[in-house]
């Protein structure tokens, strides 16, 4: 039983009191920030990354995973209570969840969301544990050409699955690549696009960039929506679900978990596709589809489970192949690099403690969410009562301190400022910054692998289509692109985002 041995190692790492404590703090901080209206998991992680700098690598990643789950749960709380989802998949949660809250069943909705998430988290943890070794063995067979093909697939997938037009997504990717070029060229040590600025010789740091693009610009965007004072005014009561509620949600939770586990692995899909598919599925098989969108408990239980399962399995390509599948995993890869770990298939074999510890603490984080967060609902609700005008300066200050403390450098605060304004401009142009950040992070790896692949192939670009794995990945990429621009699918995509 190799699997059990791996899990035992993982729990051994994750269950030390330091790591448990870090996971707990991560979950609490993540929920605290994630609860803030309009702030999604990627933003939360970007804002909270500096908190993990001083920690050892394992602890830092465990805390980040905790932050992620907390942020997700916090986002669901906001979606259910005040109908202000922080990320796209929260829109689906809000469909039925907020209606339940309006009918005075907010407590039930919140606890079903937590129970569904825990179940989904448990199943997908086992799924990750079971599939990781196989996938990373596959990953070890990858040479530079295969890596290039995989990165191209990851980038295209993020564009296709993301919101907004494919062309805008391409612009974001190319701008991300350009920003990633800044700094010293690895092979020739030539400075590129540093404009004579000393601080740029090591390139732009991804933390102030991510904080600006997601954190600061998100705040500016939220300021546009008028509405002063606190966002929540009604009372929350009846926290615990009744037996009938649990019975009604059992099967939807099961189905949602299945949908989410599978869809989460797809690169770029993130959690929106999973939640959306789960919601559609429940509506389709329900005998009373007219209740959906009006507070049907199945319409909340299933997408919330799918959401969490997908969130978890989206770590699979990141952990086994070193390939980010969205903003969150891109940030995690950035964090790993800061701690001196180069993400990729070798992590499973070289740092089993880190890999399995992280997998197990994902599950622990989910369990903590249920145990700790439900009693603390009152606390999170009271945060929603704080007037937004007091939260804004606090978040800005947090971002400034975070950006500064990456390298104790004033320059990084200036990057934060520029990235914030740039991100705001991008969101005004309907450009989602996710592909930008993703390609910024993998751009240097892409260039290095591309140049190496060409060197190995003696300058023959056909190498990318002559190797079977690389050809398959490139064909999949092409298929994705074709599908994305087909009129029928395009219409469908628009429907998803309008809903």
């Amino acid at each position, binding site marked *: 039983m190799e699997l059990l041995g791996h899990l035992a190692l993982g729990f051994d790492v994750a269950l030390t009191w330091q790591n448990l404590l870090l996971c707990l703090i991560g979950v609490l901080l993540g929920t605290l920030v994630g609860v803030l209206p309009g702030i999604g998991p990627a933003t939360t992680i970007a804002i909270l990354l500096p908190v993990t700098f001083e920690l050892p690598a394992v602890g830092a990643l465990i805390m980040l995973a905790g932050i992620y789950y907390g942020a997700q749960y916090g986002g669901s709380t906001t979606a259910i209570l005040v109908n202000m989802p922080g990320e796209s998949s929260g829109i689906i949660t809000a469909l039925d969840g907020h209606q339940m809250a309006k009918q005075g069943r907010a407590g039930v909705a919140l606890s079903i969301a937590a129970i569904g998430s825990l179940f989904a988290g448990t199943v997908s943890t086992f799924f990750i544990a079971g599939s990781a070794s196989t996938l990373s063995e596959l990953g070890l067979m990858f040479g530079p050409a295969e890596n290039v093909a995989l990165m191209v697939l990851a980038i295209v997938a993020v564009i296709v699955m993301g919101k907004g037009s494919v062309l805008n997504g391409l612009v974001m990717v190319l701008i991300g690549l*350009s920003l990633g070029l800044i700094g010293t060229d690895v092979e020739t040590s030539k400075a590129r696009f540093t404009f004579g600025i000393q601080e740029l010789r090591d390139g732009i740091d991804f933390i102030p960039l991510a904080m600006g693009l997601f954190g*600061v610009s998100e705040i500016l965007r939220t300021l546009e929506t008028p509405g002063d004072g606190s966002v929540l005014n009604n009372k929350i009561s009846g926290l615990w679900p009744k037996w009938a509620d649990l019975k009604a949600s059992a099967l939807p939770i099961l189905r949602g978990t299945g949908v989410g586990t599978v869809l989460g692995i797809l690169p770029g899909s993130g959690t929106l596709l999973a939640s959306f598919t789960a919601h559609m599925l429940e509506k389709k098989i329900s005998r009373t589809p007219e209740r959906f969108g009006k507070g049907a408990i199945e319409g909340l239980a299933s997408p919330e489970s799918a959401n969490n399962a997908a969130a978890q399995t989206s770590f699979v390509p990141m952990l086994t192949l070193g390939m980010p599948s969205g903003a969150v995993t891109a940030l995690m890869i950035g964090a790993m690099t800061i701690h001196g770990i180069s993400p990729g298939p070798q992590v499973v074999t070289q740092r089993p403690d880190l890999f399995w510890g992280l997998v197990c603490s994902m599950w622990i984080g989910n369990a903590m969410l249920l145990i700790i967060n439900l009693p603390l609902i009152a606390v999170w609700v009271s945060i929603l009562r704080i007037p937004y005008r007091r939260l804004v300066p606090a978040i*800005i*200050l947090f971002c400034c301190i975070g950006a500064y*403390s990456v390298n104790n450098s004033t320059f990084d605060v200036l990057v934060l400022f520029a990235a914030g304004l740039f991100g705001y401009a991008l969101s005004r142009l309907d450009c989602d910054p996710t592909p930008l950040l993703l390609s910024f992070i993998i751009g240097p790896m892409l260039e290095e692998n591309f140049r190496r692949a060409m060197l190995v192939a003696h300058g023959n670009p056909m190498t990318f289509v002559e190797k079977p794995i690389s050809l398959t990945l490139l064909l999949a990429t092409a298929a994705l692109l074709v599908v994305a621009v087909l009129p029928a699918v395009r219409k469908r995509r628009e429907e998803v985002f309008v809903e």
Partner: protein
Amino acid sequence: MPLNRDVLTASLATAFALTLLAFGSHLPMGTAVRMGPGFIPRAVAIGLLSVAVLILIKALLARPARADDAAPDAPIHWRGAASISFGVLTFALLIQPIGLLASATATVFFSSLAQQGEGWAERIVLAGSLAAIAGAVFAYGLGLPLPILPNFL
């Protein structure tokens, strides 16, 4: 053609492409076997220019149909953008010379001006208390090496 989002996005892409071409002109292209540091920047620049052209073509073709479904956008929140930018810049300029407590106070105060609805007294109290919390949490709690007080003290 009106100055719509598509035109602005295409101009943004073009601006990045031109920057890459202009400031990367001295970087050698290398050969196919040994690519120089100039190959990828030029490839990215060409990509940006092509996408910019595609966006403009799409905008021209779709223009009649889109005339009425362009949803009116919320106005740009200049007040927010200005005060938050000012707050962040203040932090950048002040953190090293005068330390965390004073610079955090200034940053919070300036960024609180992003929204209306608060009196001066409230803003000052908020600034002072958030700065104190930040000092306690980051410098003492997390042990980050931040200068706390002005360095001439």
